[in-house]
């Protein structure tokens, strides 16, 4: 059996610099696990 979780999360945030260009800021979602990892219910997989 398999479970697939699909979810929306902050992917990127763009911040204006003084010179008018943009840079990405923190706040993006990131996974804490990798393919092949064993996980248990309740363990963080992304933050």
């Amino acid at each position, binding site marked *: *059996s*398999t479970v697939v979780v699909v*979810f929306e*999360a902050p992917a990127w945030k763009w911040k204006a610099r003084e010179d008018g260009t943009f840079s990405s800021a923190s706040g993006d979602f990131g996974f804490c696990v990798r393919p092949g*990892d064993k996980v248990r219910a309740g363990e963080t997989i992304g933050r």
Partner: protein
Amino acid sequence: IHAANSGDSQAGKGKFLLPGATAAVLVMLGALHARRMYDDKKVVQRKEKGIEPEFSPDFKASLIRLLPLRSMSRFWGSLMEVDIPVFMRPTIYKAWARAFHSDLQEVALPLEEYPSLQAFFVRSLKEGARPIDPDPNCLVSPVDGKVLRLGELRGPGTMIEQVKGFSYSVASLLGTSSSLHDAAEEELSREHIEQSTPENSNAKSWWRVSVASPKLRDQTVLSPKKGIFYCVIYLHPGDYHRVHSPVDWNILKCRHFSGHLFPQNERAIRTVRNLYVENERVVLEGRWKEGFVAIAAIGATNVGSIRVNLEPELRTNRAVSRMVHSLPPEERVYEPEGTGVVVKKGEEIAGFKMG
């Protein structure tokens, strides 16, 4: 095989314990099994070297469609529900635990109290055996298992890779309305796409925002953009088979797709096209503080039944004809519309059963 190997050669001459055809079949099966073990070993070795397994549809994958997998699954389930004598229970469950690496220390009840292997398989755990990360900004695993795939969905296709060389559609997996997908593609083709922002997105536009995001990001300042992420987790037979909520969310819909029940081992993943989309599954869809969220619980031959706590009447793995695979999913929308059922992170929401 040959009786003449022992005793009187005259008496044994020409007499076989097994008919020739049976012996030939056994030899053939042995050879096939050896070949399969050799192939699997090669895959493991390639994985260790960092080479991803590739999709390779084979003849056996086509033949498997002809097998009565649903009947086999149901038969397996009824076998597993047979009551085991109390004195044999610890021995049998310990053997199961050894074979499938289950942890008997965390089982909620004494082994003698599980009347059948089915009851043992769907066991609950001791209080506190699965602590839930309380951080509101994290998403927790809904099950015990092995992470197969994860990542972000990008582009108009919005596909998840089943294995290198083959991907399946998320819209088909979840049964999300095709109109949403069409809207996303239409949106991409429009010149005024940059007029959209995530702030004006509503509950139904998650797909559109996700697909459109590569263009949107160049247009907006200090505006958090959303992406659609996915995580595929495989549950081994020895794993705890209950599903918990990954976040605090509102469940808005439940869909049941009555499909096939193909096995889901690594070999099947490499050889059966659209494995997850074709199998029987239940999808719970809703929203959390960051937007859309859905969980698909997908059945397999040996673990074909899915129970949903919100739907005690729902019956999966029913004895049905093959034609049912082409039917649309049964969908239930929870009231009040737009709010649905509030579920806390870590709360049990579903579970699997054998057969």
